[in-house]
């Protein structure tokens, strides 16, 4: 029994944190905002990508963590990957690391075959970006710049190269999301898996999408809290730093408590997925439910403790907060995931 990342995992995580601090500062996130929302908030012109960070991540091996060594990756597992997604969240990196390097990489690795052979090396090299999600009507993040789509349901899992499917672009409150609905996906691209096996593979992909979002939410939450602690320590009202008021302290303590107890659930789910634990799906749902709620709590506390400055687009907080809003509802909100826990406990 040992419940902590290994030394290697800590080193890798720290390296990624440092890399993203360099290549994906808030200005880079801001520059990635596009569409009407991007313009309205004083940025605009971005396409939801921070390419400098993306190539640096590829170079460091992050995009190939789950890709087999034979395909140019590191051949590691969920436990190695998930802490790095926490770092992507901490930086509010808008690029589709979860969809590409986690969901798609793990799925192609597990499914194998021609599509996998063709795409996995390009994934690991950072040459392509993937958008992943359920086959259906839900908006897909990163769709506008995706080179391929991975969409599935209980009956089929499809791999669709960009261009084979029509996109209906959507504006998200977070201008870096590159959001769109797919039209005609049900018959586009290649069926990676069909029949009874599809349900299992689609479920695993959905679990990784949810866990990746949960990991990013932990990182986003920690970052928002750190920003708020820094601001509250400096901002003075009534002759003292506002962080010395108990009302501010307790809001931030509560938020940090929520995050502190969500983070272990995320790590455990990664362990379960890595080892094919039959309860892995349950563990993912526990993690996503709590990480989503924790992120909402952290966002609320951060905005409230910042006061009016947090409400401006010139200040960075909103970049993190809006991402947290988006990810907490993506890949299943807290209610949906608790419903799965309820079912696993044998309750209605």
């Amino acid at each position, binding site marked *: 029994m040992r419940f902590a990342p290994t030394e290697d995992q800590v080193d890798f995580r720290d390296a990624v944190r440092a890399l993203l601090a360099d290549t994906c500062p808030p200005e880079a996130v801001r520059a990635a905002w596009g569409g009407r*929302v991007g313009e309205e908030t004083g940025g605009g012109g971005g396409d939801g990508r921070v390419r400098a960070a993306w190539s640096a991540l590829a170079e460091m091996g992050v995009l190939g963590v789950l890709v087999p060594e034979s395909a140019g990756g590191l051949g590691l597992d969920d436990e190695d990957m998930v802490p790095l997604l926490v770092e992507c969240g901490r930086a509010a990196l808008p690029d589709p690391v979860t969809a590409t390097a986690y969901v798609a990489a793990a799925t192609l690795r597990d499914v194998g075959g021609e599509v996998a052979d063709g795409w996995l090396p390009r994934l690991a090299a950072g040459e392509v970006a993937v958008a992943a999600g359920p086959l259906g009507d839900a908006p897909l993040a990163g769709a506008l710049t995706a080179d391929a789509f991975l969409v599935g349901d209980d009956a089929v899992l499809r791999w669709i190269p960009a261009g084979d499917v029509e996109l209906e672009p959507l504006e998200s409150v977070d201008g870096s999301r590159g959001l769109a609905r797919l039209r005609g996906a049900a018959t586009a691209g290649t069926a990676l898996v069909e029949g009874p096996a599809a349900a299992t593979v689609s479920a695993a992909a959905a679990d990784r999408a949810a866990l990746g979002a949960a990991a990013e939410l932990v990182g986003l939450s920690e970052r928002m809290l750190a920003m708020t602690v820094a601001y509250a320590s400096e901002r003075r009202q009534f002759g003292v730093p506002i962080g010395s008021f108990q009302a501010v302290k307790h809001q931030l303590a509560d938020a940090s408590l929520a995050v502190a107890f969500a983070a272990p659930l995320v790590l455990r789910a990664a362990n379960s997925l890595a080892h094919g634990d039959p309860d892995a799906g349950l563990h993912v749902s526990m993690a996503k439910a709590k990480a989503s709620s924790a992120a909402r709590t952290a966002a609320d506390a951060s905005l409230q403790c910042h006061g009016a400055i947090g409400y401006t687009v010139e200040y960075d907080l909103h970049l993190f907060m809006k991402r947290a809003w988006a990810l907490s509802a*993506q890949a299943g909100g807290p209610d949906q995931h608790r419903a799965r826990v309820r079912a696993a406990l044998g309750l209605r």
Partner: protein
Amino acid sequence: MDLTWSASEESFRAECRSWLEEHVPRPGLPSGDTSEGFALHLEWERLLHRDRWAVVSWPEAYGGRGASLWEWLIFEEEYYRVGAPQRVTQNGIFLLAPTIFEFGTPAQQDHYLTRMSSAEDLWCQGWSEPNAGSDLAGITSRAARDDAAGGWRLTGQKTWTTRGAFCTHLFGLFRTDPDAERHRGLTYFLVPLDAEGVTVRGFGRLDGDEGFAEVFLDDVFVPDGDTDPAGGGTLGAVDQGWGVAMATTTSERGLTLRSPGRFRATAGRLVDLAREVDASGCLSELVADRVADAWIDAEAYALFTLGDVTDIVEGRSPGARSSYNKIFWSELDVRLHEVALELLGADAELDGPWMKGYEFALSGPIYAGTNEIQRNIVAERVLGLPRK
């Protein structure tokens, strides 16, 4: 207790409703906190004024109908029910006007009130400063006496001024006696924004609207009292601005800024949304329960304000109890929108009306005195807990 409306109140309601249904802009206007939207809003406000719906409870002389506070509640209810636009004149008519009615001289009332109801003068608040937010008494913008010119010279910076970039006038506190203790030595000023020495810089709000402004004042001249209302002036006694301002913040926190009609209308739209989701078979009991709970709270707020109005009509002042209103409506507004976003599921992040409304609602617990400050007030001034 009498929870029925009289025949004349019912006919007032019918009149409001039919006028509103005929005139309300369809589709709705873009946000009034953008420059193009603001112009369209002004047209609407002037139409309201033309037909004497801008300020129903004011005397006819100032563009009102002399309606009772009850009738005002009815008007507000109909106004929000029909989905009419947010009032870009609200800071004037709901916050400054009650103060002018209470503290203004006849000359000030005559000059300002009509120009305000007709949306000729557009007022923004000048309370917050970079270092005086929750700590309003920490204001450092100052007004120096200019005896020769018969007035004051204002210098300093105001910020978080909602719609400041589109307004024509500012009301706010300035320090007239720098030696006095924090809450003293402040005076309430009325300032035309086209006065020499004023610079306004707009900046973006969370929801993407350019709704905030910083207002810089550099040796801006404002005449004494009501000597030249067109040029601005002081409202109430010199060095007594804190008390004058508190009358305004009571309005802001309490009922006049946030009539129950607004939240009942939102709650009604929330229930409609829930019914749609239910019809498609996707409504969970969990979210339905939250819809019901938020809807009950909107009703509770409406009833609470009926109590407020009864008190005001019968001459009992709500006083610090207005902090109850502020905390409740602001957190209710957030909750109504949160539940709506839950109903939208994976579409919640789309930049649609509920998300916009949510972003706007999030400002509620912050402005008009953060809810932390309001809870202090409830604890100290309503419950009687010790300050120190």
